[in-house]
């Protein structure tokens, strides 16, 4: 099948969403099934905010023919250097095809998309809680917290220490890291509750951030409501367009007038933590 000519992939400076052809710089295995992909991308496409995502056109090769794009949260971005990175888990046809891309290969990505995390003016201490690959979604918060001169603590949860692959990244960005793992028996919700409440007691938490997990959502909602601390959660949903047109990626949210269906790609992927519903 013939392809569209790439001429229009030169980013239009006046349009906030760009479809671009990026180039793979490095693509490493960081733990079993986890890959860190670093792309070279035009600076015009890198006006990103933490929590935003790109829609990735996974390559079609002899073994995989993924049809739809795959939404992937941004792990890191550097406009000045023209760098964009993703930390992802190989789970299905799309990510398996993506994982075979070698340095030098081209990759079509669309973004930045969606509404990212907010860091309120008055929030000095930020607490990020996430597990596994969910840590990747929260990593840009550390980058932004440093830029704004805020204190970020990250509670990083994983099956075992080798799955805590974002820790060095968080520390390099100036975040304080607390590790919990299943193997050490420190990742159960009640233990996490104790850790988060201790952080709050020490006055380190003005805003809570999490993503991806029902358990963490419930925990952060309870703790946030009790302590009167606002929070945000980044959510996932299967997508088709990623831009807000197709109405495929809706999820229910608790709103003053009742439950409302909102598009994860457009009204999210970051939502008020108290409005999110368990799934």
């Amino acid at each position, binding site marked *: 099948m013939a392809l569209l000519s790439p001429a*229009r992939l030169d980013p239009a400076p006046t349009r906030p969403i760009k479809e671009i052809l990026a180039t793979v710089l490095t693509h490493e295995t960081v733990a079993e099934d986890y890959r860190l992909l670093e792309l070279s991308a035009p600076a015009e496409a890198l006006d990103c905010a933490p929590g935003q995502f790109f829609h990735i056109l996974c390559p079609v090769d002899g073994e995989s023919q993924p049809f739809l794009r795959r939404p992937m949260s941004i792990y890191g971005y550097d406009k000045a250097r023209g760098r964009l990175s993703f930390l992802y888990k190989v789970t299905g046809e799309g990510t398996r095809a993506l994982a075979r891309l070698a340095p030098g290969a081209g990759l079509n990505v669309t973004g930045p998309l969606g509404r990212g995390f907010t860091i309120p003016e008055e929030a000095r201490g930020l607490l990020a809680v996430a597990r596994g690959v969910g840590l990747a979604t929260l990593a840009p918060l550390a980058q932004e917290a440093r830029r704004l001169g805020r204190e970020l603590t990250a509670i990083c949860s994983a099956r075992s220490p080798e799955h805590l692959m974002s820790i060095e990244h968080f520390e390099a960005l100036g975040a304080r890291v607390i590790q919990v793992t299943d193997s050490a028996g420190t990742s159960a919700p009640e233990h996490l509750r104790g850790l988060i409440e201790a952080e709050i007691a020490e006055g380190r938490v003005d805003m809570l951030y999490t993503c991806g997990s029902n358990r963490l959502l419930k925990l952060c909602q309870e703790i946030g409501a009790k302590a009167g601390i606002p929070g945000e959660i980044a959510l996932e949903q299967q997508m088709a367009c990623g*831009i807000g*047109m197709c109405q495929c990626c809706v999820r229910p949210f608790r709103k003053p007038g009742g439950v409302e269906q909102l598009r994860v790609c457009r009204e999210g992927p970051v939502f008020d933590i108290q409005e999110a519903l368990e799934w």
Partner: protein
Amino acid sequence: MVDLTARVGALTLKNPIMPASGTFSREMAEVFDLDALGALVTKTITAEIRGGNPTPRVCEVEGGMLNSIGIPSKGLGAFLASELPAYAGHRAPLVVSISAPSVEGFAALCEKVSQPGVAAIEANISCPNIEEDGKAFAMRPETTRRVLEALRGATDLPLWAKLTPNTGETVEVAQAAEAAGADGLVVANTMLSMSIDPRSRKPKLGNLMGGLSGPSFKPIALRMTYQCARSVEIPVIGCGGISTAEDVVEYLIAGASAVQVGTASFINPTAMPRLLDDLAAFMRTEGIASVAELVGSIRDDATAEAVRFMETAP
């Protein structure tokens, strides 16, 4: 310089590319200049507020996707109050897609959306008719005739009927729409399909079944476009699986006066402006001066009518 002008009945479009209903919204302006397009087509509007179907609402299949979005709609009031005025800033003609579960409701909605700023009405008659047996209006000539006659009486705007591929009476339905006063046919909506996860044994769509779109659907919609163009005098707008300029040219040759692009915009948000560039480049390379030169130029002279209009594979 090639002439991309497309004539769709009384409407003259600057080029033959427009979005397919349901795959487009004003958010697309964040990707490219919408005035580059031949026309803009809204997501289907219903009179009432609708929530849509349970998730998952889409799944991918080889060479395409299935969707069962379920026409979520903010209702007529919201459309007239906020959506329609927001299109006023765009120069591209606006086509409003409408749907209703009854003939009377369809006609009432049609009259209310026939407003200044609307260039044409696209009647999505591929939806279930709850007054009859729940089958889509466009599955049969008689229900097509009844709803189109009512719509014709409700508007003076150009009226397009969007047909369904879920019929064995393509030609009869097309002719019924024409006889009832339609000014154009959009061929076609998606084809009812299914996909099952072999491990969980669950249907991949929350609504069990959904409509197939994308390149794997193109040969079906192209066949229908050809059959419709051969059997009616009113213009036909081709729609189904277009993702390259060659696809656009195929539809034009089959008899389409213009085309709609849908699923391709999900895969490449810049698909429509790139299709325009590529179409112009194709025409330059092939020495074709105008889109009009391509429309209906298929070389099928030796083919018998019975073969042209067959409804089953030989």
